């Protein structure tokens, strides 16, 4: 199996192959022989040259992280054989940008309704959770195209709240 893995934004090429009950890996060309078992859901026990690592997988609605001990890594994984391509999202990044709820909460105020011109970093709406208010700011200079959550609405992490173009 071959994967393209991005760890904290840095891309790696990973080849994995089973060998005598162990795993033979090539990470960016470098050979690593290791022993790995899934101990329980989302918890992997990895042994490399006698060193033991407990790796935890964390999934949130918006992203995936792996924890090696107490250290956290943002992870993206793709199988190069997969048909899916990155171009779509790359184009997204250039044009319209989405304002995404970073955590569940409730919209308490819309600061920049649709069609408002906004500067990069200007507040678009205020979301409250656990008695704290979070002002969500425009990721770019542009015009608010749509506001997708009204005042008083409950939102989940990962919900698109507005689009700025």
């Amino acid at each position, binding site marked *: 199996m071959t994967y393209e893995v991005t760890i904290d934004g840095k891309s790696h090429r990973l080849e994995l192959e089973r060998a005598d009950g162990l795993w033979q890996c090539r*990470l960016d060309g470098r050979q690593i022989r290791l022993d790995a078992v899934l101990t329980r*859901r989302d918890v992997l026990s990895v042994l490399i040259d006698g060193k033991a690592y407990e790796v935890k*997988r964390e999934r949130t*609605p918006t992203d*995936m992280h792996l924890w090696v*001990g107490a250290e956290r890594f*943002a992870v993206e994984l793709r199988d190069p054989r997969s048909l899916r391509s990155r171009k779509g999202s790359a184009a997204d990044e250039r044009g319209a940008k989405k304002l995404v709820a970073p955590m569940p909460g409730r919209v308490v105020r819309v600061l920049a309704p649709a069609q408002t011109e906004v500067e990069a970093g200007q*507040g678009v709406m205020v979301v409250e959770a656990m008695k704290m208010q*979070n002002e969500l700011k425009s990721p770019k200079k542009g015009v608010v195209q749509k506001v997708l959550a009204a005042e008083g609405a409950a939102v989940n992490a990962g919900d698109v709240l507005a689009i700025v173009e």
Partner: protein
Amino acid sequence: MFKKILIANRGEIAVRVIRACRELGITSVAVYSDVDRASLHVRKADEAYYIGPAAASESYLNIAEILDVARRSGAEAIHPGYGFLSENAKFAQACVDSGIKFIGPTAAAMEMMGSKTRARQRMEQAGVPFVPGTSRALESFDEAEQVAARIGYPVMLKAAAGGGGKGMRLVGSPDDLESALEAARSEAQRSFGDSEVYLEKYIVNPRHIEMQILGDEQGNCVWLGERECSIQRRHQKVLEESPSPLVDPDMRRRMGEIAVRVARAADYTNAGTVEFLSDQEKNFYFLEMNTRLQVEHPVTELITGLDLVHLQIRIASGEKLPFTQEQVQIRGHAMECRIYAEDPDNHYFPSPGKITLLLAPSGPGIRHDSGIYEGWTVPIDYDPLLAKLIGYGTDRKQTIGRLLRALNEYFVGGIKTNLSLFRRILNDPDFQAGNLDTGYLDRLLALSAGTASAPAGGSEIAAVAAGLFAVLEPIAPSSHGTSSHGGGDRNGTSSWKRTARAEGLRSG
């Protein structure tokens, strides 16, 4: 002894009290709001009743509804936990009026301690030490000069009508007093329309140290050792310990005796905490009394071997304190980490949501008082305290080692927590040396986090593990971020403001 107790709270403290009830053979009655039906306290209770919508004002602060549930369920007493109604004298009185025992002090004692001016008068009469200074406005510069000379520099000028730092001036030497007084007065006039200013000794690098007391309804009152609570962020306690690294047996005895004097002066019954401000030379001054069980009560339980909730219930049921001051044995060292749903990498913003993976620590010297479980969704409506990790050891060093070990085992996936903050504090040489004051944590956080704890090759292992997970436990592509993971976009989150602290959950 009571047969049935209602717990007017939620989260870890409700679970804590439910456990005490079960240990004593008492039926426990939980209450819950719309968003708490699946909460751990409802799972663990013997009975559970719905009391209203998510908003605390309509559920956990809804006195009429809670008393109605108490009557319907046949509960003889109510434990308020901390926060919510725990320091609400009207609620305590309403319980009495309904023929239900409130597990805590009387409404009168709560009211007295709740009024700063009445409390100060009564406590000064009882010989309780306050920060030296004038409690009234200064008449003249001469008076200011005399008082400052008597209490010693540095001193702090404060606006009598003030708050929020307006009209405050720190004065380091007599030469600066006159100009500072004028500046403070004019700023006070501008800000509050009142130029009156008073003067207090300025405590350099103060420590927040508090004393646990326990009084029965027969007039017996004991102190149970101090807790150092100097590790604070935005005036909220983060980590507490007992004994305090500062306090020696003589200071402990003096502080304990004064705390008992405070309690007696207020006719105080049940569990309470007397808060002091201490300087680094072991002078300490009365701040206020918390008229309830504290979040951090477990550290006192571990060093004394007592169960404060059992004792609260016994006292409320009319029992005498089962021991004297001389029989209290303080042994070892205990420390509590408050585990919050908040993101340390992002200004400690709250992080409610679904807990996808939970690995809880256990083993020697570790107590875990938790209100969460794997698969539960932390609601957006309440305080972000998830659980408390409490360590006990023979000495402070062993306790720190055990907590670091437990933090290593502890994992909460799906939401952000402040677990990494405790790794940082407990590994910090200043903390380990016991050099604490209320500014400690802000100073630590102002430093860059550093990368000392990162194991070599961690990112390589993460890369390999990502592939292994994909082979061994594939997950649906929709549920993880194969596309851009910019959802938690750092640009998007900023300038959180704490809006309300009506429940005061984090203060104590």
